[in-house]
């Protein structure tokens, strides 16, 4: 056991830290609409790209730095620490690119990877549907072959960034006559066609991070199938695995910062002592999340695959963020209940944490079945 960074890792961290100190953008625009804010994130990605920091985990041949898993975790920790915005094309960088590197043809890699990195082409993720959430493989969006094209009709939901996207990672049913996991195909769908309508989905915070997609006979060339027809479930799993991996470190640091802010607030308001037990428990949880995330990384480095134990980290993180933002209401007072204030935003946004990217209930099932080996209850269908 050695919980220190190697010289190379330290050098990587220091270089990034130094660069961030010089180059990090000013605060997010407080005026203006979602588009203004998105433009700000796009500009930030361009800056990262120009300096070679957009996706250090990508292999050098695709424009990355071939960073190790540890360095990649350091990257997200440092971005979190510097409180910089998320790069505009986060889904392309973290999910789309890595999925293409595994499943894409040489032509696809050649065509798509570079614009992902630069942020010229934004990507979104078309997986969930109104009737296919946790049970993703039951999705109904249909793809029918027509010559050397596919004709796609259906509906997707929770698609963040759809209004800015050029490409959608779309999973659709290409064969209804086989078992549900086997009839799926993974496509790259051009969002710039009339057959795809984007409608913002307003959430409990009042903003619209997500969208609904209405797809009515959209056309996708055969060349845009990723990983082969009927192989969509496997390709989608690659995307979902990547979803859990990198982002965890940024979220963990964000939680730490919120807790530090809250502790300072409690001290300032003279309510630290009465909340000391709860704050200390949150501190223990934050540290556990950090330690478990690093342990998961060590396991990947040793055994090559992230274990389903990663579910524990997401479960603990989401639950802790909800507890923290709830405690903030007691400590911060009226501001935490006033619309437009940051603590009230955090309170409301945190409710999504135990739902997005796998509900806590599904995570518990995964832990019970795949880690503990408990039997699965047969559900009547």
């Amino acid at each position, binding site marked *: 056991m050695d*919980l220190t960074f190697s010289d190379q890792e330290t050098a990587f961290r220091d270089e990034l830290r130094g660069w961030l100190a010089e180059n990090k953008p000013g605060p997010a625009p407080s005026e203006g609409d979602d588009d203004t804010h998105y433009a700000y994130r796009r500009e930030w990605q361009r800056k990262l790209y120009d300096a070679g920091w957009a996706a250090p985990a990508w292999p050098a041949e695709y424009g990355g730095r071939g960073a190790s898993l540890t360095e990649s975790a350091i990257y997200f920790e440092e971005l979190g620490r510097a409180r910089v915005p998320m790069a505009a094309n986060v889904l392309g960088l973290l999910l789309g690119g890595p999925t293409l590197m595994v499943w894409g043809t040489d032509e696809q890699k050649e065509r798509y990877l570079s614009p992902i990195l630069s942020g010229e082409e934004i990507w979104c993720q078309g997986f969930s549907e109104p009737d296919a959430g946790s049970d993703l493989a039951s999705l109904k969006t249909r793809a029918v072959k027509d010559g050397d094209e596919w004709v796609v009709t259906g509906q997707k939901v929770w698609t963040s960034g759809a209004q800015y996207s050029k490409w959608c990672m779309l999973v659709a049913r290409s064969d209804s006559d086989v078992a549900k996991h086997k009839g799926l195909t993974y496509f790259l769908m051009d969002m710039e066609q009339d057959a795809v309508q984007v409608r913002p989905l307003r959430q409990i915070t009042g903003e619209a991070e997500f969208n609904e997609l209405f797809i009515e006979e959209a056309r996708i060339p055969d060349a845009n199938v990723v990983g082969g027809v009927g192989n969509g479930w496997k390709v989608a799993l690659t995307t979902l695995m990547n979803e859990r991996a990198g982002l965890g470190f940024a979220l963990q640091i964000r939680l730490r910062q919120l807790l530090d802010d809250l502790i300072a607030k409690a001290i300032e308001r003279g309510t630290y002592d009465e909340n*000391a037990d709860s704050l200390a428990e949150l501190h223990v949880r934050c540290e556990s999340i950090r330690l478990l995330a690093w342990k998961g990384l060590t396991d990947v480095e040793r055994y090559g695959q992230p274990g389903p134990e990663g579910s524990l980290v997401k479960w603990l993180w989401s639950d802790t963020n909800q507890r923290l933002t709830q405690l903030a209401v007691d400590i911060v007072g009226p501001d935490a209940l006033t619309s437009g204030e940051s603590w009230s935003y955090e309170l409301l946004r945190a409710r999504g944490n135990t739902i997005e990217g796998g509900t806590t209930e599904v995570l518990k099932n995964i832990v019970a079945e795949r880690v503990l080996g*408990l039997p*699965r209850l047969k559900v009547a269908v």
Partner: protein
Amino acid sequence: MDFGFTDDQREIQRTARDLLAERATPARVREHAEARTVDQALWRELSELGWPGIAVSEEYGGQGLGQIELSILCEELGRSLAPVPFLPSALAATAIEQSGVQAQCERWLPGLASGETVGALGTVVDGVAGLVIGGADSQVLVLVEDDGTGLVIAAEDAEVTPLQAIDPTRSAARVSVPDGAGDSLGDVCVGLGRSLISVSSELVGVCERALEMTVAYVKDRKQFGVPVGAYQAVSHRCAQMLLDTEKARSTANFAAWTADADPERLAEAAAMAKASASDAGREVTAGAIQMHGGIGFTWEADVHWLYKRAQLDAALLGGAKRHRAQLSAILADKVAASATA
């Protein structure tokens, strides 16, 4: 950055687990628990293997290994509930080595390291240690006060009243020190910090075993024609038990690492570990009884030994609340320091 154990550490863990699986079987543990006796044959065997001295320095006859190695043994002994005074004796040795002067070390450590002497450590309030685990069969006692002072005393010089604690796998006693008796130790903070980690590691072992027994039981036990572990009310509680266990393990292992590699963070890490492990020990073993249903409430099932051990360990050297209070003071200091920096 590497969270895994080294090959040598894994070897210690594997050897310990294999040996204890053979020697500290549930039947053997039950026999000694019901008779409230120490398994002397096992204690002799462990002593010959050098276990009691694993973290005592070589100069005093130990193996001179670190807190991680000591924690590995504590965890394995916690898993097995072996009825031997390993933990109490290790706590006494740690405190004496960390805060004793040379004469005190020379007097007590060789015996503690070889297993010929058995020790125990307790906390004193108004001159009385109400419950010293292992206290009734010790030859040397370390008694510490809240202010970080402590003393070491030969058992024959103290007033030792044996108690029947709910955990019958180890002895217990009420200890008081006659005026002027005992030998003062220096600042016991570091020794206490390390001791908290050892107790936490034992609790992790207890949790791990409780979860294993529970998972095996709910896979096997059928009601309404299916294993009860298929019901989410049951499987989700098991998942929670795993989360609690892994959370405790992460902080205990981190603390064990800091003890030798980053001593400045020892106080914080030890408080985190003990807060986390005390809560987990109580929750996980309570869950084990509940998930076993009616059988879990019977004397015949073995889960109650784990529950009882967890209760004693969770309270030993202060429970979760006390260590969170400790931690909150450390956090406030940190915030103050960063504000003035």
